[in-house]
């Protein structure tokens, strides 16, 4: 059993030189948001067509207020940590402009029925519109075994007739780690951001039709629904 354990550790360690070669810690991620492409496995031959993204709103104007970087360490978006008993090799993943990245991600809500535009909502009780200010609380990617994993937390403060309502939306991503390239870390961060924005869009869609759909309450995590 010990030999088998050692063999698996050795196999993992054998990948490390290749993995370390691809990642360039000196090059910050470009932080360009691209929505993840649906897996081909979801569309099978001779099967009914897979529907497009679920529409959570109908031409609802989404006013994008101020977007802030509220992370505790704004310089990085994760870390590579390799080691058997503890990290013996660490590289920080440096980040580019995360405010622009968040803005791009929020603009992607056009695909689920929103009409995003910059600025505060002119009136918080007007119909078929919703406005919010945003803060990026966490954007963290790391390697786990043969995969890359990520976690993004997006905070939204909605304008409602009862005052601002703040919610935090978590998103997580997992992709296979093929060559440990900078682009792959960007891809896994985009997967988590897409998940977080999807969870945000679900709540925002409710507010388009019912301004009191979200009760004012302390910030609560919203469980992933996809």
């Amino acid at each position, binding site marked *: 059993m010990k030999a088998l354990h050692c063999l698996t550790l050795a196999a993992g*360690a054998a990948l490390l030189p290749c993995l370390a070669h691809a990642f360039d810690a000196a090059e910050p991620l470009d932080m360009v948001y691209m929505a993840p492409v649906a897996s081909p496995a979801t569309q099978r031959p001779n099967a009914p067509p897979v529907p497009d993204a679920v529409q959570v709103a109908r031409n609802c104007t989404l006013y994008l207020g101020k977007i802030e970087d509220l992370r505790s360490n704004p310089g990085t978006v994760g870390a590579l940590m390799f080691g058997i008993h503890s990290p013996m090799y660490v590289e920080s993943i440096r980040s580019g402009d995360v405010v622009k990245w968040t803005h791009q991600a929020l603009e992607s809500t056009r695909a689920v029925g929103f009409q995003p535009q910059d600025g505060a909502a002119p009136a918080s009780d007007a119909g078929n519109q919703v406005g919010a200010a945003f803060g990026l609380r*966490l954007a963290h990617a790391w390697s786990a075994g043969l995969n890359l994993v990520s976690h993004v937390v997006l905070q939204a403060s909605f304008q409602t007739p009862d005052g601002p309502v703040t919610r935090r939306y978590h998103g997580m991503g997992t992709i296979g780690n093929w060559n440990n390239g900078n682009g792959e870390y960007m891809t896994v961060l985009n997967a988590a951001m897409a998940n977080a924005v999807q969870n945000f869009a679900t709540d925002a869609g409710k507010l388009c039709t019912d301004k009191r759909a979200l009760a004012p309450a302390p910030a609560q995590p919203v469980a992933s629904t996809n």
Partner: protein
Amino acid sequence: MSVQRLLLAAMALCLAGCAQFHKPLSAENRQKIKAVDVRVVVAQDGFMFSATAPGASAAPGGLIGVLIDVEVQKSRQKGMAAEIQATVDPLLDIDFRKEARIALKQATEASFPLRLQSAEVVSTMPVQRERDERIAATAKGDAYMTLLVQYALEPGLGAFTTRTGINLWQDGQAERSYYGNAVYQAPLPAGTRAEVVARLTADDGRLLRTYMRESITETLRMVALDIDAQAKPANGAAEPKKEPFNLIANGMKATLSGVLVDRRGTRTIRRVDTVGMYSVEQGAQP
């Protein structure tokens, strides 16, 4: 290139049968060190929960195995999303470096076997070029020690663990004169996940911050004991007696065998050959 050499060395050591993850500091090398710059690297911004099943160590081999592993991880991640979020969310306001800074400051004011020229906690690992330059500078200046810290809440929230990889360079040599592991573990209060998280985060995260600070204090103590012990000349005494002790690794109970090095109340420090030092609660063995 030194990174690749390091990783290749790790691979070779693994293939040799998990032989060596610890290199003692020789008496000769210790004598040469006039002072050391210590950098404690805390590169994480949150607890890095992955959806790995407790006890799982590696994916099945081959391309198909990798593809299966990704899909299994995605599926488990979806299943665990609510649990991970409910654990991480209340901890978002915890500063992962603050307690380490306090503990390091206290350590620099207390005794350490090497004279500390400087000691800092950093959030970002310097890039390779800067690391190479700093290591090269040890030829004419102070030695350079890095402590690579990883905080973890074990799956199932059975324990809080801090794992630290320690490296020391001196005399301008790319080869490390000392390296090892220091693992600190504290059992968490019993209860449901929600109860445990509530206790960890209550009062501005006081309990969790206490664990973080103690873990760095203990890590520095482990490093000090390791350096001190290895620097003493062999006295021909009998082989120290090893005893089994338990800890939680990846959510599963594991039993290791190590020599008792120090005891303070119920907390003991043990040295495990070829690996390094472990600080565990003796009275609360899992």
